[in-house]
């Protein structure tokens, strides 16, 4: 009996979280007149809303921009994160503890303080309306560095000593021995940076003004807020669906990694 109530509660909870998404996807295929219906079914499914979106905004271009920017950021965060993480965990050099202290200190600084100066820096570099403004400031993540460092600290010294005897230098040790061992960290850092970059809207809104370079969340936001959707609910929902579907698809296959990665991020902070 008790089990019954638990399941009932969990299922109702599940519907509360999942149903709005199902409704959104279904509504994006409904004609404008039927969007306010609560149910999912319609006998007049149509692609009109999607046609309207594609007609009004370069949505595929923005999808490409987002994919390109997020991939560059992610690869770079992993690459540089592992290099710096290696130096901070496996090399003894003057100033190492200082760098570590600085990293921990900068994690406390709220981003609100650097936002405006960062924008001005982009203006001075001439990076406004360029991929550089979207990619370069995100190429390093202090969080990525710390995760790699922590993981590398636990790798036994024997492995390194053996590799040195075989004539490996530090870079070879990092890329040939540490990298293959670091799959879990690479996945975690990869998912976190990709999601962070993909979902960010504030920064693109600030540094990108031309439509050709807008990221997808930014494009969809301005489409809905800027009046281009002309209060067509269907078109707004279709744009939102297009923005949601890629990440939901990836999530469907790798949900365990997503959840574990995000949980470690929370716990390590």
């Amino acid at each position, binding site marked *: 009996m008790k089990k019954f109530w638990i399941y009932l509660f969990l299922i109702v909870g599940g519907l509360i979280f999942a149903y709005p998404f199902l409704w959104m996807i279904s509504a994006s295929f409904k004609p404008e007149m039927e969007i306010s219906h609560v149910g999912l079914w319609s006998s007049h499914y149509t692609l009109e809303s999607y046609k309207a979106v594609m007609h009004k905004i370069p949505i595929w271009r923005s999808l490409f921009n987002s994919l390109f920017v997020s991939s560059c950021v992610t690869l770079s965060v992993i690459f540089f994160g592992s290099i*710096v993480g290696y130096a901070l965990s496996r090399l003894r050099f003057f100033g190492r503890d200082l760098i570590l202290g600085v990293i921990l200190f900068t994690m406390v*600084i*709220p981003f609100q303080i650097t936002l405006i100066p960062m924008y001005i820096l982009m203006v001075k570099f001439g990076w406004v309306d360029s991929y550089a403004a979207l990619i370069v400031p995100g190429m390093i993540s202090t969080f990525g560095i710390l995760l790699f460092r922590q993981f590398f600290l636990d790798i036994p010294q024997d492995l390194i000593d053996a590799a040195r005897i075989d004539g490996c230098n530090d870079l070879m040790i990092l890329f040939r021995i540490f990298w293959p061992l670091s799959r879990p960290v690479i996945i975690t850092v990869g998912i976190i940076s990709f999601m962070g970059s993909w979902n960010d809207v504030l920064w693109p809104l600030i540094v990108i003004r031309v439509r050709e370079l807008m990221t997808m969340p930014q494009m969809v936001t301005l489409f809905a807020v800027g009046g281009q959707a002309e209060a067509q609910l269907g078109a707004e929902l279709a744009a939102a669906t297009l923005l949601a579907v890629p990440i939901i698809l990836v999530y469907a296959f790798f949900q365990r990694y997503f959840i574990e990665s995000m949980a470690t991020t929370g716990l390590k902070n």
Partner: protein
Amino acid sequence: MKRKSKNPENRLGHLMSLPYTLYFLLFVGFPLVFSFILIFHKWNVITPMEWVGLRNFIRLSQDKLFFQSILNTLKFLIIHIPLQIVVALLLAVLLNQKIKARGFFRAVYFLPVIVSGVVITLLWRQLYAYDSGLLNTLLTKLGLSRIPWITHPDWAMPSIAIMATWKNVGLYIVLFLVGLQGIPRYLYEAAEIDGARPVQQFFFITLPALNSTIVLVIILSTIGGFSLFIEPFVMTGGGPVNSTLSAMLYIYNQAFYFGHMGYAATLGFFFAVIVLIIVLIQKKLVEQKDT
């Protein structure tokens, strides 16, 4: 096996940490220093900077709208954080029972966490719509009256807080689950022998054991709540009557709508100090409790 010859590792260490050093100087150090300069200037980026001394601060101290935006943000947090903790705890405790398909439920609850805030807000804008929104349609079908979710100043911020809870709670469910799984079983077995009812077990074993997780949830959602921006930007544009104007939205408007860079930097600076103080107080309170 520590090598004594210091020099080669010194050079390599500096070389390998160079990416971070550059990043720090360019994107952390410089902006920090520059924000100190900016707060004493009036500037719209195009014309030359103009020294104004403390006038930005004087203006800030008289800026009622800015203080209202901070109060709005705090209002958001006061609703969002307790709601989040209660819902997350409840679902986490249920998920921690001996049930089937736990992974499935967890994955469903987590779904809104990974989806962009833009999607969530556009979706909820439809759910909250006064005349044709899903929620009001359901309410009228149940014979209740419509709620002006995002059209009435008293309702708008709570509505955004509810939506934000729906979006984020999955993450906190997972964090609580991790915490719950760390509680030793024998505590419950001993309590059961002593005749403690499930409710008592919850309040005297589960809740104290989750103390550090609860604090973590509070700190994480405080930091997240202070950066509240895209939700009001898309949902209400800060209205009605500025009731959902968050501090970040106000700073954004000052900088990029009105072009007041110096003043916006001052607001950002002041706001960041508030955020820092509140988070540090929260951390202090925890450390005191732990000792």
